[in-house]
């Protein structure tokens, strides 16, 4: 029996090996052929995707696309960006207008299962919170009964808030304003007692807009889970693997302490794990049908996850919070690269 199992295992390994060495998927083929990745991004969200003074796109969502380009094409610059509104984003992906959707999109069941798209991972964990002026002496969201709450319409934010108040048998008065500028004015001039949106947004607003940031407090309750991540189309497993492991490589690089500055030096040092990562040994690149130095290219040209975070989100006043690595008390965890 043991013999048979060995044969079976051998056959399985062989099958896996063949599968692993199969050709790149249609998306990667077309990307290589046209020479660039078409990347769907936000039309302008600080820290995630935003054109700078010279019109160059910057942000952690943009960095993900740059990383995929570095892995597949060897050059992080080989990207073209399609700014997409919230309504357009899934159509653009489904119809093939973009190859990757990297647009602070919340991973939900209905989207993943029902829209013909696949979420490949999470590059930012967010959640909805409440901000109040400190002078109101509110310490918990449970004390918000009867409060006037500023909120933007049409997002899950409004629905989450309604759910939360109903579940806690509290009343509230929504002040619904579409434009961010105006909703903030309403909050800062005291037209409403509370402002609610994703915590990352609250932190950024408090840092940038409050005359004295210390006068405002973000309540400890986070009432929803908003994991943002890159999205690809159904039907191209190779492409999904490529984008997924690009994200994981960025996280893994941070865990290994590899940065864009020290990776050349670390690659010489002889640590076998790093040797595998940079492609000096092993054949991880071959399994993805790409250059064996793909992960090296990602870190060298774009940096690891922590570098990307510090470049784009730290200046907004966001701290790592739950986006720390798993071994530092956060949620960022990459399966082992081996």
């Amino acid at each position: 029996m043991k013999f048979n199992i060995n044969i079976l295992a051998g056959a399985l390994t062989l099958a896996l090996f063949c599968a692993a060495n199969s050709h790149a998927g249609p998306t990667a083929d077309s990307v290589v052929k046209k020479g660039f990745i078409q990347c769907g991004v936000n039309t302008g969200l600080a820290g995630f995707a935003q054109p700078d003074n010279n019109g160059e796109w910057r942000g952690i969502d943009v960095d993900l696309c740059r990383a995929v380009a570095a892995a597949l094409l060897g050059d992080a610059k080989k990207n073209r960006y399609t700014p997409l509104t919230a309504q357009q984003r899934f159509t653009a992906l489904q119809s093939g207008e973009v190859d990757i959707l990297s647009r602070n999109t919340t991973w939900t069941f209905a989207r993943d299962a029902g829209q013909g798209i696949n979420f490949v991972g999470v590059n930012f964990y967010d959640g909805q919170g409440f901000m109040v002026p400190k002078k109101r002496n509110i310490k918990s969201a449970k004390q918000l009964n009867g409060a006037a709450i500023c909120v933007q319409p049409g997002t899950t934010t409004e629905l989450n808030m309604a759910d939360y108040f109903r579940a806690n048998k509290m009343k509230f008065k929504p002040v619904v304003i579409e434009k961010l500028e105006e909703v903030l004015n309403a909050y800062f001039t005291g037209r409403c007692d509370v402002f609610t949106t994703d915590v990352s947004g609250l932190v950024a607003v408090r840092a940038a807009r409050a005359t004295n940031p210390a006068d405002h407090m973000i309540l400890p309750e986070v009432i929803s889970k908003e994991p943002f991540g890159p999205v690809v189309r159904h039907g191209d497993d190779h492409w999904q693997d490529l984008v997924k492991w690009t994200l994981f490589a960025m996280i893994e690089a941070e865990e290994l302490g590899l940065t864009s500055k020290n990776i050349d030096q670390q690659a010489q040092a002889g640590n076998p794990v790093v040797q595998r990562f940079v492609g000096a040994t092993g054949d991880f690149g071959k399994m993805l049908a790409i250059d064996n130095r793909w992960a090296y290219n990602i870190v060298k040209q774009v940096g690891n996850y922590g570098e990307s975070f510090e470049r784009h989100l730290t200046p907004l006043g966001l701290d790592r919070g739950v986006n720390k690595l798993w071994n530092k008390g956060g949620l960022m965890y990459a399966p082992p690269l081996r």
Partner: protein
Amino acid sequence: MSRGQAMVQWTRTRLFSSWPSALATLAIVILAAKLLPALIDWAFLRAHWSAGDGAACRGADAGACWALVTAKYRFILFGTFPVDQHWRPAMVIATLLALYGVSGFHLLPAKKLCSLWLAALIAIGVLMWGGVLGLSYVENQRWGGLTLTLLLSTFGIALAFPLSILLALGRRSEMPIIRWSAIGYIELVRGVPLISVLFMASVLLPLFLPQGVSIDKLLRAQLAMILFAAAYLAEVVRGGLQAIPPQQEEAALALGLSYWQRVRYVTLPQALRVAIPPLVNTFIGFFKDTSLVVIIGLFDFLTTIKVSLTEPAWSGFGIEAYLFAALGYFAFCYPMSRYSQALERRSAHGAGLGALREN
């Protein structure tokens, strides 16, 4: 009557002709005296014209933060065009402005003007796209800012206008198929909002096309805008045509002119002259409508300004940003309306009504 007396007279009749009018004048003067100094103080004296990251603008006594505009001017003018190639859209803007000037002040005869426009449009295409003459190729996804607004509205008006004349003639045609299709088209387009068509073109259309095939986004927007403007303009042109007395047409018929000769030499020139004010009205509306392309993710003039506002450094300076946007639109719309008035005067005593009366 001396100059001084004339002024007193003018003041009395225009500003203080009655008690209510005198009160209104006083109220306005007092209000202006109160508001203007504060406004000037805010907009100029305490204003910041440059502040690296917006921090200087946030001082307690800071006035208007024009630094937003001076920091983001490249993005506002050229969108996401590659930065080392910014001279190309800059030249395009200069070319377009020169074209508007040459046409607006009638510096060239019509035939030469047509060839000039044609040559300029080709040059603009080459400059924007590149890919020839050693210019690097720039996909039109990266066009933006004021350049995009000017391109969309110039090409839109230039192409929609001839189409609208055909539609207006079609609607008045005696051939039923032509008439009914013109009516159907105009009524259909006027019955749906532009915003919904742009939305459908960007959200629905791609789903019907085979995978990988995508009609260019900019082209989609430009086409939708042309088709829309044509329908509205057609009704304006038709209004002009209705104003021409039927005797004109009959006289032309009696002279043995063919249909196209009658249109070209008799009805259309008069109809367009009558229709100048509503035509320019529609042009101005159309120019401002180009800002709707934000729905499909194109960065026009207004959108680049709005996107600049989402940057934390400039968050909160919405008043300055929107004032600048308003100034920008005004700088183009006001000359358009001046041009229409000049055109009216010109056609009134040129080959216009005076000449008709002499016959």
